[in-house]
């Protein structure tokens, strides 16, 4: 299993770098799993990189040899638009939709785009990780800070947001212009994190003000940001998805990862079965697989259920109290994040920070 996983990783690493970012109108990448001409076709649309989610799919297919799974990788905003359009026109598109932009998924479920399903495994999910039995949280990924081990001295490593504020406060700080974060207009996930931050603590206002003053960089896509940190282009990246950071760290020792100890947002990618899906029983089997011990193990191996959240792994997240973990629950309250006027107001403030 492990070897399969590694070979996947090396095989796709190049494509990942090439295609991870930039395309916006169409799917970013497509991969077919399972043997040609297998009986049943399953279409999965996801925001997760094929390279990362591929091994999980492979594990699933071992138990379902007659299934051919078409994996489409999308940007979150495009995936939302497409799914919504499919839903309104009642057009059969994907059989499974998995997105990290859970607020968009909540919105889709709210608009009656999802099919319901209940099983013993879905019932075992905590209440915050399922909604209406139409939307389920399948991963656990913290939003972390990433820094360059070589260029950031040990004393400067920010453990909390307050540490980061302190680093940025001096007028001659060497971190000016070298802190990066998501461009929240481009990335649905970045917007979600920023919005959750704004709900979580007043720190975010101050942080935003500091980012603006020190001309922090907002850019697209986890991979770009992390690579930028590793290569020394940026010194610190804020609110990067922990799963990507850890995956990168396994190949490139130059980055360090911090789970902010004041609070750490934990994202659960949401899975939904569109109501017009053609292969609902198979999609349900896939969901049950992801929630089963086997599937959980596969997700853990793919770092999608993050080992960083387990205290005994010796990483920087050690000692993080459980109250500091703030899961982004699947609830209709997330719809606020997607409201047109609210988003506009929020983005206007953001633009004022990053001109």
């Amino acid at each position, binding site marked *: 299993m492990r070897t399969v996983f590694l070979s996947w990783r090396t095989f796709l690493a190049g494509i990942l770098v090439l295609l991870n970012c930039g395309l916006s109108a169409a799917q970013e990448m497509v991969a077919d799993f399972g043997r040609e001409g297998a009986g049943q076709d399953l279409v999965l649309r996801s925001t997760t990189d094929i390279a990362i989610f591929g091994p999980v799919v492979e594990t699933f297919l071992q138990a379902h040899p007659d299934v051919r799974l078409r994996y489409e990788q999308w940007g979150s905003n495009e995936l939302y638009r497409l799914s919504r359009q499919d839903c309104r026109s009642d057009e059969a598109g994907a059989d499974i939709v998995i997105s990290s932009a859970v607020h968009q998924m909540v919105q889709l479920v*709210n*608009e*009656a785009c999802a099919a319901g399903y209940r099983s013993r495994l879905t019932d075992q999910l905590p209440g915050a990780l399922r909604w209406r039995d139409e939307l389920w949280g399948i991963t656990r990924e913290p939003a972390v800070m990433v820094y360059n081990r070589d260029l950031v001295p040990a004393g400067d490593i920010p453990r909390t947001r307050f540490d980061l504020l302190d680093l940025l406060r001096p007028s001659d700080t060497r971190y000016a212009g070298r802190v990066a974060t998501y461009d929240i207009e481009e990335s649905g996930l970045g917007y979600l994190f920023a919005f959750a931050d704004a*709900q979580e603590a007043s720190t975010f206002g101050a942080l935003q003000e500091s980012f603006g003053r020190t001309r922090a960089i907002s850019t697209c896509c986890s991979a770009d940001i992390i690579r930028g940190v590793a290569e020394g282009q940026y010194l610190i990246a804020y609110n990067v998805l922990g799963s990507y950071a850890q995956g990168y760290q396994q190949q490139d020792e130059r980055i360090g990862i911090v789970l902010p100890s004041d609070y750490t947002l934990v994202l659960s990618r949401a899975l939904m079965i569109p109501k017009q899906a053609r292969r609902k029983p198979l999609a349900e089997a896939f969901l049950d697989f992801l929630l089963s011990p086997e599937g959980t193990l596969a997700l853990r191996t793919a770092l999608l259920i993050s080992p960083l959240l387990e205290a005994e792994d010796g990483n920087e997240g050690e000692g993080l109290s459980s109250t500091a973990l703030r899961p982004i629950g699947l*609830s209709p*309250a997330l719809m*606020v994040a997607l*409201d*047109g*006027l609210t988003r506009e107001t929020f983005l206007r403030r953001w633009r004022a920070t990053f001109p």
Partner: protein
Amino acid sequence: MTSLTARVAAGVAVLLIIGGVIVSIAAFAYGREAARSAFDRLLLGAAHDIASAITVQDGKPVIELPVSAFELLAFAPDDRIGYRIIGPEGKTLTGYEEIALPANRRDLRDGYFDGSFFGEPARYAIVSRRFAERTLNGTIRVVVGQTMLARNSMAYDITRKALYVLAASGLAMILLAVVVVRSVLTPLERIAGGLSARDPHDLTPMDTSVPRETAVMIDALNGFMARLDRQMNSMRHLISDTAHQLRTPVAALRAQADLFSGEADLSRKEKIVERIQTRSASLGRLLDQMLSQALVIHRGDSARRETVDLRDIALDVFEEGDHAVLNPEMDVALDIGEKPVEVLADVPSLKEALKNLLSNAFKYGRPPVRIGASLEDGKAVIWVEDAGKGPDRQTLDELGTRFNRGTLARQASSGLGLAIAHSVAVSFGGELVLEQTSGERFRAALLFDAAPARSA
């Protein structure tokens, strides 16, 4: 349906079913109302929360939806949320344009309305907020709605709990009914047990220490047994009297018959035959009278009372004319008036009594004999009168005491005739009066309470 338990069970079951249906409907209606008002308040709270978050910047309404409003709505955890914020010109500022406002409410005051949300029934609240800024003047309306899952489940929950209570109370009622039926039936079982444990000859009254409702039955039973007892007693008396009275004449007859067979002299034999004839004739009369007495006693207890005109009785006895056959030498006159003389009694018994009195008059009195019926001082009287003096005072007194002792029947036939008349009088609530009338005549009369005059 003959079982009391089954009747009570059916009654309780009907009560429970009807009550259950009514309570279920009432509980469901109440549950729906309670759920509606509870969740309506949530909606209104959320709508106000959102409305108060609207501000005006550069002449445009600006809003950051308060998360708290949605967290409020998330108290109905599985319900979809719809909202729409409408600007002063009726343009949707944000939210779902799909939410249709009720067409008949043009002015759209604040309040609630029912609608649907993506095909699911939903309930909405509207809150208006007026702005009077230099740059923005008008009303912004906030519509917030929610599907009905939580409301329905709350309503069902309330209904279900009410039904639990109903089921429990129904069970209690059934248990109670069983206990009550058992305890009601206990006295009956006791009575039945007492009856079957009784000696067959025991006709004494039963224990009446039973509930009032069953005492009726006991009283009826005791009355019945008393009547049975009386009849048994009179039968016993009759049998012993008969045995006693027949023994002497039969023994005399047998003695005469013995004499006859041992007598050689023809003329004496003839005398003996004559005696035997007289004896057997009087034995026949005695038998007649005893049978009459038995009849009278039997009818006194068992015959139905009817209204009888005593004049008819006198007339019938007079016209039957038995006396004319037996005593052709005696003159009999009938003396009845115009007015009916009515009593509640039994015709054969009265006739028998009158016949006996008449035959006594023939036997011991002197002609002329008169029989009649009349009303005297509110009493109905039927009587036989003769010209003799009647028995002397001492005999009359003795007769009186013997009537009271009930031993009269052991006397010779005259006593028996009076005894029959006496029995009849007593059976129908009257009395036998033997007296000297003012006209130096002897009268034997039966006095009864006159029956109330018929409204003819």
